[in-house]
C-alpha cells in the first residue's frame, strides 16, 4: 500500500488539472445544434464499437485461456485439418453481426446528417469569411451596401439565429472550424463553400484553421462571440460606424503616421485615408479580444510588441517588422487604442 500513496498524490493534481478548463475550443462545447448532434451520434458509435471491441477481446483471451487447458501441442496430422463446423457457423454469425452493426451505424449517421442539414436551413444572416495566410477576413453581407460590414478575426453571431457563412480563400486551402459550434468546412481558392451554423449558447468560443496552410497554420485562430440578438445588433451598429478621430496629441501623431505611412498600404481604417485591402481591417481593432488572429490577447503590452516586431511573435507573418523609433511606436499604439 505504502508506495501507492505518493503515486496517487502526484496523479491527482494532474487529473484535476485535466478537468479544470473551459470547453471553448472543444467537441464537448455543446454550444451549437451541430455539435450537440455530433455528441449524440458519437455516443451511439462509442457504445456499438465498444461492444464489438469487448467481443473481440473476450474471444482473444478466451482462446488463450482455453489453450492453456489443452495438453498436446502437436501439429494436426494428416493432409486435411477439419475445422469445427460450429466455428464455421459462428464465423457466418460474426459476419452478419458486423453487417447489422455497420448498417445500423450507417443509418444513424445518414439521419444525423439529414437532420443537421435541416436544422441549418432558413438562414437569417449571411457572412462571407475569406481565408488568408494566416488571418480571417469577415464581411457581414447586406443588400444595402452602406450596411455591409467588414472586420477581421472576430466573428459575432446572435444566439439561435441560423447564420450562413460563405467560405472563400485568397491564397491556399484553409478550413473553418469552431468545434464548440459545428464541424469543419474548407475554404478553397476558386470555389465557394458554405456552412450554416445555429449557435445555442451564449459565450466566447475559439476556432482554428484545420487545414495545414503554411508556416503559421498554428496561429490562425478565430474568436467567435455568441451574443443575445439585441447585444449582437448593438455590436453590429457600433461596428458600422467609422473610426473616431483621435483627441490627444499623441494619438493624433499616431493617426497621421498610420493613415499616411506604410500601415495604410495594407490596412483599412474606415473613415480615414487608410484603405489597404490585403490585411485585417483595423477600424475597431481595440474592441477585439485578440490580436494577430488569436495569437495574443488584446492588451496594451501586446499591441506594443506586435507593432514593434510582429516577426518575432509570429515568425513568417506577412506584416513586416518596420523598426519604428520609440516615439512613433508610442504614438501608433496610442492611436490604435482609440479604435474601440
Amino acid at each position: 500500500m505504502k508506495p501507492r500513496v505518493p503515486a496517487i498524490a502526484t496523479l491527482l493534481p494532474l487529473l484535476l488539472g485535466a478537468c479544470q478548463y473551459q470547453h471553448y475550443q472543444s467537441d464537448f462545447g455543446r454550444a451549437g445544434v451541430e455539435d450537440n448532434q455530433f455528441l449524440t451520434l458519437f455516443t451511439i458509435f462509442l457504445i456499438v464499437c465498444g461492444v464489438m471491441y469487448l467481443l473481440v477481446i473476450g474471444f482473444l483471451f478466451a482462446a488463450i485461456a482455453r489453450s492453456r487447458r489443452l495438453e498436446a501441442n502437436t501439429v494436426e496430422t494428416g493432409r486435411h485439418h477439419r475445422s469445427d463446423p460450429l466455428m464455421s457457423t459462428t464465423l457466418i454469425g460474426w459476419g452478419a453481426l458486423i453487417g447489422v452493426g455497420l448498417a445500423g451505424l450507417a443509418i444513424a449517421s445518414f439521419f444525423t446528417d439529414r437532420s443537421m442539414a435541416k436544422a441549418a436551413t432558413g438562414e437569417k444572416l449571411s457572412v462571407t469569411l475569406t481565408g488568408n495566410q494566416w488571418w480571417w477576413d469577415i464581411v457581414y453581407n447586406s443588400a444595402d451596401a452602406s450596411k455591409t460590414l467588414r472586420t477581421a478575426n472576430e466573428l459575432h453571431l446572435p444566439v439561435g439565429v441560423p447564420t450562413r457563412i460563405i467560405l472563400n480563400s485568397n491564397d491556399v486551402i484553409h478550413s473553418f472550424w469552431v468545434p464548440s459550434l459545428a464541424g469543419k468546412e474548407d475554404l478553397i481558392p476558386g470555389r465557394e463553400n458554405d456552412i450554416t451554423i445555429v449557435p445555442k449558447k451564449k459565450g466566447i468560443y475559439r476556432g482554428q484553421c484545420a487545414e495545414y496552410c503554411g508556416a503559421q497554420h498554428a496561429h490562425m485562430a478565430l474568436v467567435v462571440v455568441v451574443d443575445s440578438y439585441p447585444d449582437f445588433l448593438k455590436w453590429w451598429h457600433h461596428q458600422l460606424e467609422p473610426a473616431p478621430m483621435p483627441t490627444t496629441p499623441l494619438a493624433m501623431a499616431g493617426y497621421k503616421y498610420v493613415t499616411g505611412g506604410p500601415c495604410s498600404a495594407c490596412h483599412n481604417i474606415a473613415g480615414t485615408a487608410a484603405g489597404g485591402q490585403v490585411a485585417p481591417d483595423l477600424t475597431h481593432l481595440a474592441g477585439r479580444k485578440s490580436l494577430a488572429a488569436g495569437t495574443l490577447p488584446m492588451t496594451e503590452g501586446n499591441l506594443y510588441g506586435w507593432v514593434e516586431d510582429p516577426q518575432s511573435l509570429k515568425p513568417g507573418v506577412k506584416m513586416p517588422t518596420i523598426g519604428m523609433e520609440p516615439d512613433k511606436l508610442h504614438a501608433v499604439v496610442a492611436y490604435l487604442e482609440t479604435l474601440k
Partner: protein
Amino acid sequence: MTDIRADSFDAMPAGERERIRVEEENRRLSQERKKIARDGPKLMGEKLEARLEVTWRRPPGIIGWLASVDHKEIGRRYIVTALLFLALGGVLALAMRVQLARPDSALIGAERYNQIFTMHGSTMMFLFAVPVMEGVGVYIIPLMLGTRSTAFPRLNAFSYFMYLFGGLLLWGAFILNIGPDVGWFAYTPLSGPQFSPGKRADIWAQMITFTEVSALAAAVVLVCTILKARAPGMTLARMPLFAWAMLVQAVMIIFAMPAVALASSMLISDRLVGINFYNAVEHGDALLWQHLFWFFGHPEVYIIFIPATGFVSMITETFCRRPVFAHAVVVLALISTGILAFGLWVHHMFATGLPRVGYSFYTAASMSVSIPTGLQIFCWLATMWDGRPRLQVPMLYVVGFIITFVIGGLTGVMVAAVPLDLQLHDTYFVVAHFHYVLIGGAVFPLLGVLTYWFPKITGRMMSETLGKITFWLTFIGFHMTFFPMHWSGLLGMPRRVYTYPAGLGLEVPNLISSIGAFVLATAVLLFVLNGLFSLYRGAIATPNPWGAATLEWATSSPPPVYNFAHIPVVESNTPLWDLDGELPVVTGLRVDEKETLLTTVVAATPDVREPVPAASLWPFISAIAVGIVFIASIFSPWALAVGVIPCAIALTAWFWPKELKRHPEPVIS
C-alpha cells in the same frame, strides 16, 4: 494425349469432367517430367551443392555488390535501409513530441517544425512502410514458393537503387536545409509555385517519383514471381496466405501508384513550366490534386496493412500449430479489401464541400471495409481457439496487434461517418486513429515477423527474453503515446500545429503522449540492440526452428545463394507438416547456368525452364541515369530531353541479348 472428343466431353456430368481433367493433367505432368530429364552428367548431394554455389554466386567485391541480382541480398538491403529510415523518422517524431510536450513551447520554430512533420510523414509512408513490406516480400516470397529467384531479378535490383536514391534525395535535401515543408500530402495550391517558391516542394515531388518507380518495379517482380514461379503442385488454393497478401498488395500498387505518379508529374509541370493544372486563377482546380492524391493515398494504407495481415497469418499458423481457420475466407477478405480500398478516397475530403448526399456512398464503402477485416480477425482468433498458441515473441506481437489494431479499425468506422468526421477530421483524433492502424496494424506484425524470420535471414535466433521485454515496452509505450491523442483531438487540437495555447485542456494529454513516445523509442532501440546482439551472439538456428509448415523453412538458415538444391514439389497447404519422409523434389534443371522452373498460373504444373539473368551492373547504371533525369528536372525542363539519352543507352545494354549454350548440360538428378 487423350481420345475424348470435345462434344462428348461437354455432355459429361461436371464431376466426371473434372476427374478426366485431373487425369489428363497428371498424364501430361509425367510426360513433362520425362522431357526435362536430359542427357548429361547427373549431380547429387554435396557435389551438386558445390556446383550450384559456383553457378549462382555473384562476382566478389564492391562491383559484385552493386551488380548482385540475388533476391535475398536485395531483400536484406531493402529491410535494412527501410529500418534506418524508420529510425530517422522516429527521431523526427521524438523532436515533435518534445516540442508539443508543453503549450506555447519555443524549442522548435514554425518553419523547422513544418519541415519535420513533412519529413516524418513522407519518410514513414514512402521510405519505410511500403519498402519494408516489399523488402520482406522480395526476400521471403521466392523461398516460401520454393523457387530459386524472383522473376526479373535485374528489375528487382533496379527497384532497390531507385528507392535508395529517392531516400537519399529527400534526406540530403533535409540536411542541406532545403527539405520539403508542405506536408506529406502536399496539398495544392500550398505546394504550387506561388506559395512554395524555392525547390522544397520539387524535392518532395521527385522523391515521390523515385519511390513510385521503385514500388512499381518491385510490384511487377512480386506479381510475376507469385503467379509463375511457384513450386510445382502449389496451386493457387494451396498458396500460403503471406503470398496471397503480397499478391494483392502488389496488384494494388500497380493500380494505385500511377495516380500519384500522374499527380506529382502534374505538380512538377505546374512548378517547372507553369502549366497550372492546380491553379484556380488560371482555370485549374485546387481540388483535383486531392482526388488524385487520395485515389492513391487511401489504397496506400492497405498496401501497408495487407502484407502485415500476411505476417499475422503466418505467425498464427506456426505458433498455433494449425492452418489458419477458413483459408478461403481469409483469401477472399484480402481480395475484397484490395478492391474496396479503391472506392473510398473521398472520405479524406468530407470537409471540401462536395455534394453532401454523395458522401453517403463513401461512408458506406469506408464502413464496409471493416467486414472483410472483421472476418479475418475472427479467423485468426478461431485458429488460436482451435490450436494451442505458444506465446513466444512473434505470437505476442500478434496478440498485441489484435488488441491495438481493432481499436484503430473501430475509430476508423467513426471517422467514416460524415457528421463525426467533420468534427474529427484533421485533429489529433485522426492522428491517433491512423497510428493505431499503421503501428498497431502493420508495425507490430512487422516486429513479430522480423523476429520470426530473423533466424532464416541471419542463421541465428533473436533473444527471447530481450524480445519479451521489447514487446511489453512497445505495447505500453505505444498506447501511452497514442491513446491520449484521441482525447486531445476531441478537445479541439488540430493536426500539424507547431504549438498550442495553454488553457484548452491540452497540456496533460500532450505531456503523457510525449513521455510515451520516449518509452516507445526505447523499445525500438532495444529491438535493434537485440537484433545486433543476436546477429553475432544468438543461438545458431536450425533450418526450421519454429516448426513451421511453409517451404522457406525447408532450406538451411540462412539459405544458400541458390535457395534450394532441389526445387520442392508441393502436395498440400502445409507441406512441411504433411511430410511422409523426404520432401518430393524436381529434377532435371541444369546447373552450369542459372536456371529455374516456371509453372502454370493456377494449377502450378511445370511449364518452362527459365534462364535466370546473371549479375549485372546495368541496373545500377540505369538507376543512376534515371536518377539524374529526375533530379535535374527539378531545375530545368531540358533535363528530360537530354537525360533520356544515357537512360536509353543504359537500358539497351541492360537488355542486350545473350547467347544460350547448346552443348550437353549437366543436370540435377
